[in-house]
Structure formats: C-alpha cells, structure tokens
C-alpha cells in the first residue's frame, strides 16, 4: 500500500511494506535508488509496521523541475513522514544515512533511533567546498531518479562539525543513550567525526534494531 504525503509542492510516496503494531520502522534509500518493495530480512523481527519513503525526485515521488536539491530538504521529506506517522525508528542507506542523522538531530523526540548503513551517496561532496562548478544534466536521461538529484546530492558539502552538531542534539535531547548507531563499513569524514561523539554507537543492523525495539 502506498500513501501520498505532501511536502511543499512535492508529493511523496510512502510505501507500507509490512503491517505491525507499535512504532514504525522507516527505511530511507540511497542516492539514485528507490524504496524496496519487500521488507528486508533483517527487519523480520520488527513488531511495528515497516515503511519506506521515496525521497523527492526518486521512485514514485514528484520530480521537480530544474533542481535545487539539498539534504536539508530531504530531511524535510522525512519530517513530513514524522508529522503523519509520529515517532519512528529509521534505517538509512548512503544518502539516506546522512538524512537520518539530520532528522535525528532536528526531531530528537520523534526519532527513536537512527541506523546509518552503507549505500549510494554516503560521502556527498566531501567535508568542505571544492571548486564551484556549473552543473548541467542530461534532461533526456531516463528518470526517475531525477538527474538533478544525482548531480547535486553527490556534490553537497558535509562538514564534520556540522554533522557532529546534529549528533549532539540527538544525544542531548532524545533521552536515548545511543540515538544513533553506525552500521556502515565505509566512513567518510562526516561519519568518522560523529563516531567520536557520545551517544553514537557502532553495531550491525540487526543488533541495533533489536536495541531500538526495546526503547520507549
């Protein structure tokens, strides 16, 4: 079952992969991906519903014209789900892992655990601004995913101290001991930096999920 949620002028597709009772698990895909159609094996023991969101410009969500993407706007995509579904636990792949960190810091009461996993778009454009460039995309390329999303969200700057400020907020304000768990093997500078913060744990996905299932 797929529901349509509205974020500004964008219609977001929120897929329900499995029913359940209790807090939902929300899956965030990587850059250029779309939501999976079946719940992953490691989520089989999750008691609540399993949801998956197509980010703006991906899957069945709206493809805006002329780009202008930022990870903060994708954080707004996830906040639209929070507004609709209430508190949830998040698993994010790649780009979705970075967005999961942002929303965990920005809505610390609503995000009951964020698991950061490997996936496309994990590094973004690196820790600081590179040489500026004028992007151009092939507007005739098959889409979705939106070619502007692919171009812009692989170049956005992700400063380590910006990432740690979100991790600190999650830790200070969520009331959880470890609101963020890193399951990713690859660690770009922003991810390396948050690992030094209190409240950021390292664990495989299944173990992280089991521990978040046990928190209020």
């Amino acid at each position: 079952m797929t529901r349509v949620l509205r974020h500004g002028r964008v219609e977001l597709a929120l897929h329900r992969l499995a029913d359940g009772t209790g807090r939902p698990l929300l899956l965030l895909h990587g850059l250029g991906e779309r939501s999976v159609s079946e719940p992953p094996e490691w989520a089989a023991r999750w008691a609540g519903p399993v949801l998956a969101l197509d980010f703006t410009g991906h899957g069945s969500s709206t493809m805006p014209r002329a780009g202008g993407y930022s990870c903060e706007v994708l954080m707004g995509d996830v906040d639209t789900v929070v507004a609709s579904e209430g508190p949830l636990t998040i698993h994010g792949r790649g780009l979705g892992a970075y967005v999961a960190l942002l929303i965990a810091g920005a809505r610390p009461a609503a995000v009951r655990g964020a698991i950061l996993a490997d996936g496309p778009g994990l590094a973004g454009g690196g820790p600081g601004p590179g040489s500026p460039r004028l992007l151009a995309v092939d507007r005739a390329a098959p889409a979705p995913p939106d070619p502007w999303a692919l171009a812009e969200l692989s170049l956005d700057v992700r400063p380590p101290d910006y990432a740690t400020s979100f991790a600190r907020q999650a830790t200070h304000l969520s009331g959880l001991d470890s609101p963020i768990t890193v399951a990713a093997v690859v660690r770009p500078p922003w991810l390396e930096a948050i690992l030094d913060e209190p409240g950021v744990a390292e664990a495989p996905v299944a173990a992280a999920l089991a521990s978040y299932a046990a928190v209020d």
Partner: protein
Amino acid sequence: MTSTADETAITFPGARRPDRSRRVDASGVPIAVYEWGDEAAPPILLSHGGFDFAATFDLLAPLLADGGWRVVAWDQRGHGDSGHSSLYSWEADMRDAVAVMSSVATRAMPVLGHSKGGALMLELADAAPYRVSHLVNLDGLPSKVTHPDVVDRERTRLKASELSGWLDFRRQAATNQRKPGTIHELAARRGRMNPRLSQDWLRYIVTIGARQDPDGWRWKFDPLLRMGGFGPWRPQWSLTRTPGLGMPMLGMLGMVHEPMGWATQPDDVQPYLPPGARIVALEDTGHFVHVERPRVIADAVLEFLS
C-alpha cells in the same frame, strides 16, 4: 483593504522602470528578465539580493544605461515575477543567472551583485571566469560571523529551536500564503527590515514586488521561501572565492549595519582581496547602497568599467 488606482501608480524620483522585459527558460523555470538602455550597447548584468527583486535597481540601472550600457537584471526564481519552484538552492540560482547571461551574450561581461546577489556573482566568477569580465560587489561580501560565547549545551538548544522552526515552517508550506495588507502596510512591514529606506521608496517597490488580490496586496515572493540561510554554508566559504579571482573587482560596503546585511568591515575582507581589487567604504550608508546613493554607485561603476 482595496487600493485605489492612484495608489498603484506610485512613482519615485529618479526611478525608471525597465525599457524592455522578457522571459528566459531556465531548465523549465520561467525567469523574468528586464533591460534598460540601448540593446546594441555592451551588456552588464545586475543581480539582486535575497527577498528582493530586480526593481531594486530602478534607480541605479537607468544611470548605468544613460552611461552607455545595456543593463540586464532578472528576478531570481521564487522572487518577483519569475516562476515559483519546488526547490531552491544557491547552485540553482547560479544556473539561472547563467541562463540569463546566455540570453544576452556568450562572451564575458561585467556583473554587479547586491548582498546575496553579490556573493552569488563571486561564486559564478570563480566557477566560470570565462563569463565574467569585471566584478562589482555591493555590500555582498560576507564575513565571519562571530558566535556569542555560549556554553556548548546552550548552543545545542539554540540550534535545535532553529531547526525545528525551519521544519515547522515547511510543514505548513503547502498551504502558506503571504499576509495581505494595503500598500502602506506592506511598506511599513518591509521598513522594519530596511529601516533606512524611505516609506516612499518602499511603497513604490510594493507596487512592483507585490500583487493586488481581492483581500489586499501580497508580496509575490514564493511562500515556500523563508528568510535566513540554512544548511552547512558558512560565510567564510564565500570569501575564499575571492583571492584567486583574475578579473578586476570593485567592492562597495555600506558602513551602517542593518538587519538584512552582513555588517562586513573593510578590514574583514582586505586579506581576501585579489590583487588590484578596490574596496570603497560608504559612511552613513546602510545595506541598500544602490538605493541610498545611486549616483555615487553609478559614477564609481562607470569609472571602474571605463
């Protein structure tokens, strides 16, 4: 709440509406472009600031046009009469600027930017030096913001409320509308952000940057846009664009701090200037240097380009 026809015909001494206007398609977003002066004259591109629109140049542009230039300005996406978009970003604004440039000429041309438009043109000059022959920056050189000395935990709370405020705004964004009012009310509201600009000027600007709905005047700014920057951008990143610029550069700073400006001092930017760049500090002038002192700015620009 309705206004009389007289009110819509507000004029301002020295202000001249563009001689021509047209639209440019920027990857699907219609961009409103305005021109003053002889179409055969050499072009100069004018870039307005955030929450502003091309009519901010209605005083300066005619002076440059009369000085022998084809002056081209545009409303940024979501501003003035340009199209509203689903997404907004610095990079998208920069691409829109290039689309406007390409509609005029493919060779390098002088560019002038105010405030955010100035910082945007710094970045464009770095990204595409082959498109920019001269760079004029009007009170648009960001400097390092000094954070108040607060304990870490307190800063976390401040940032948290900023973030939730931004997200709360976006939750309403689908149904947001700008607040209606009379021309006088809109000018008075704007005056709180631009305390040095006269109400006469602000009322003139309202009649261009706002539209008349049945329940009153509303700014045309996309209700999806929110004042204030957001994201990992830092002002000093903008400054790191300048030392390597190869084209001549003129910067003009308003020395009186206002809510919309960066309060940059000449000493803040001096170490970052490219060789030969000139900075002019304008005493007793606020952030909108081109509205407060159009003749002084025009003369400096015309001399710089001559």
